[in-house]
C-alpha cells in the first residue's frame, strides 16, 4: 500500500514517524510493528531499525562519512554484514539512485540533489521492509523529483512498503493509495485521498489546499453537470474523462527493455522511457528521447490528444507500466498498447 502522511508544518509528522522506529518512546499507548508491540531494548531496537529506515528531508543531517561509499556502507556495517555482501549492497543501491560512478567521491563535494540521492542509497543499502521518506522531493529540481518518485515506485513494486511524509498535496494526491492526515498532533483522517479533499472545510483547517487536479475536476464536472467521481489523479486521467466518446485516441507502442537497447523504431511520435536501467542505457547510447521523465504520463497525454507514441521501459516493470496505463479505463478510453 502506498501510504502518505500529510499535514502542515508542525502537525507532528516527524514526531509520529520517529515513533515507528523507536527513536521516540510514547508516553502512553503502544506502537506495533508486524502485529507485535515494540520493545525498547538495545537489541530489539537495532533489529527494528534495520527493518524500518527513515530518510530525513535534509540529507546533510544523515550523511556522516566522508566518501560516498563509506556512507552507504555505514548502515550495513553497523548490522555486521559480511564484506562481500556489503560490497554488493553498495553497488546495487548506488546503481539504483544513479550515483555509482561517484562512489569514491567525498560527500562534501556533492550537489544538494546528489547528497539527497546518497542519503536514499544509504537507507536502501539496509534493505529495509519499510522505508519512510520525509519530503522526498523537497529542494529537488523537477526532473530529479520525477526520478526519485519513479525509483520509489520501483521499490514499491519490489515489495518494500514506502511511507511518504509530506505537505505537498499534489504529490500526495497523485501517488497515494491511502493518506493519513495529521492536524496539530491529532490524526483526523485515514483512508483514500478523495473523501478528504472533497471536504473543503477540513482541508482548510488542516493548513492544506486541494490538489490542482482535484479542484479542476470538480469545477469542470459541476459545470458540465456530471458526477465528480471517478476522480482523476493525473492530467491524462483528467483528459480521458473530458474527452468525447468519438475522439480519436492514439496508440502506445510498448517496447520492453531487457539487456540491449534494440532498435527503437523511428516512427513519428514522441518516445518516452521508464525505469532506471532503460534511462542509463539510453543516456549511454544517446538515442533521441522526448520524455525522459514522467514518460507514462507523457505518452498517455499524447494518446488522449490523438497522437501515437513509443514507450521503452525496464522489462521487470511491465506490469506496473501496463497497470498505470490501464487505469485510464476508469475515466474513458484506454489507449491501445502494441
Amino acid at each position, binding site marked *: 500500500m502506498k501510504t502518505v502522511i500529510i499535514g502542515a508544518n508542525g502537525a507532528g509528522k516527524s514526531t509520529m514517524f*520517529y515513533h515507528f*522506529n523507536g*527513536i521516540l518512546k510514547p508516553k502512553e499507548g503502544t506502537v506495533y510493528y508486524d502485529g507485535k508491540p515494540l520493545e525498547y531494548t538495545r537489541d530489539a531496537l*537495532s533489529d527494528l*531499525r*534495520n527493518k524500518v*529506515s*527513515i530518510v*530525513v528531508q*535534509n540529507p*546533510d*543531517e*544523515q*550523511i*556522516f*562519512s*566522508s*566518501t560516498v*561509499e*563509506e556512507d552507504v*556502507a*555505514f*548502515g550495513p*556495517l*553497523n*548490522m555486521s554484514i559480511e564484506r562481500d555482501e*556489503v560490497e554488493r549492497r*553498495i553497488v546495487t543501491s548506488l546503481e539504483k539512485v544513479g550515483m555509482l560512478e561517484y562512489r569514491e567521491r*567525498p*560527500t*562534501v*563535494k556533492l550537489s544538494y540533489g546528489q547528497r539527497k540521492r546518497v542519503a536514499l542509497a*544509504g537507507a536502501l543499502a*539496509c534493505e529495509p521492509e519499510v522505508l519512510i521518506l520525509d519530503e522526498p522531493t523537497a529542494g529537488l529540481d523537477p526532473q530529479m523529483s520525477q526520478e526519485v518518485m519513479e525509483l520509489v515506485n520501483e521499490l514499491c513494486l519490489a515489495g518494500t512498503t514506502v511511507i511518504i511524509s509530506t505537505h505537498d498535496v499534489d504529490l500526495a494526491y497523485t501517488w497515494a493509495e491511502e493518506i493519513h492526515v495529521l492536524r496539530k498532533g491529532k490524526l483526523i483522517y485515514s483512508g483514500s485521498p478523495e473523501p478528504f479533499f472533497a471536504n473543503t472545510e477540513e482541508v482548510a483547517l488542516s493548513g492544506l489546499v486541494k490538489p490542482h487536479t482535484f479542484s479542476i475536476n470538480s469545477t469542470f464536472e459541476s459545470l458540465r453537470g456530471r458526477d465528480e467521481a471517478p476522480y482523476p489523479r493525473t492530467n491524462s486521467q483528467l483528459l480521458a474523462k473530458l474527452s468525447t466518446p468519438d475522439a480519436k485516441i492514439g496508440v502506445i507502442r510498448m517496447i520492453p527493455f531487457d539487456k540491449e537497447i534494440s532498435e527503437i523504431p523511428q516512427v513519428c511520435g514522441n518516445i518516452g522511457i521508464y525505469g532506471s536501467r532503460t534511462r542509463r542505457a539510453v543516456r549511454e547510447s544517446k538515442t533521441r528521447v522526448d520524455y525522459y521523465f514522467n514518460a507514462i504520463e507523457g505518452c498517455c497525454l499524447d494518446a488522449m490528444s490523438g497522437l501515437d507514441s513509443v514507450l521503452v521501459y525496464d522489462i521487470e516493470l511491465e506490469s506496473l507500466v501496463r497497470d498505470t496505463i490501464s487505469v485510464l479505463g476508469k475515466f474513458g478510453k484506454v489507449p491501445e498498447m502494441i
Partner: protein
Amino acid sequence: MSEETQMDTLAYSSRMLYWAPLGKLLFCVLVLIANLVTESILVPFITLAIGLSMMAYSTNFKIPFFIAIALLEALAILIIGAGLISISGESGNVLWESHFLWINIYMTDDSFNKAWLVLFRGVAGMAVMMGFATSTPIPHLSQALRQVHLPVEIVELIVLIYRYGFLLLERMEIMYHAAACRMGFNGFLRSIKTTASIGVGIFISSTNMADKAQTALSCRNYKGYFPLYRAPAKTGLKWILFSALVCAAMIIFGLETEGIVNMYELFKGVLF
C-alpha cells in the same frame, strides 16, 4: 570557496592520495625531527628539497597560487621572528647594539647565526607539512590516527568536525552575504556586532544540527563508532625502513656538517 575547501580538493586529486597515510605521516614526522636534531644549517635545505618535491609530485608539479601565498605569508612571519631572535643575543661577540625605551638590544654573532638557522628550519618544516597536507585529506588522516590506536572518541570528533565544518562554513558564507545585503558592515562597531550575531546564528544552527544528527545516527543504527569500509593502505615495513633511513642519513649528515657554514662569517664582509 574558503582555503579549507581548496586544500581538500587538492588533497583528493593528489597523486599520493592512496599512499599509506600513516606512512606519509611517519615519514614527515621523522624528517621534521631530523630537521631539528642537529645544529647544521645545511640540513634544513635537504628538508626543504624533500618538502618541495613532495608538494610538486603531489600536485602534479603545479603548485597552486593559494599555497604559494600561504607559504609567503608564513615566510613573512618567520622573517619577523628570525629578526627578533637575531637582536636578542645573550652571548658571543656583540655586532651591533641599541637602546629602545628601557630595553637594551644586542645582536651577537651567536644570535645572528641562530636566527638564520630558525628561519631555514621554519621554511623547510612548512614545506614538508604542506607536502603532507596537499596529499592527505582529513578523513585519511583520521584513519591513520585510528591505526595508531588513538582513542576512538578523538578520531570521531575529528571526522565530525571536518564533516560539519564544511556545512557551517557554507552557512556562514550565506549569512555573511545576507548581512552585507542589509548593510550590516557599515562602520566598525556595526561590523563587530554583525559578526557576533552571525557567530550566535552559527552556534544555534550547529547545536540544532548536532541534535538532528544524533537522531539520524540512531535511525541508522549507530553503535558508538564509525565502521570503516575501505581501510587505507597499510603502512608496510618498507615505509618504516625508508623513513628511518632518511631520518638517520639526515642526522648523520647534520652531525658531520655542523658548524661548516657560519652565516656570520658569510655576511661579515657585506654587513659588518
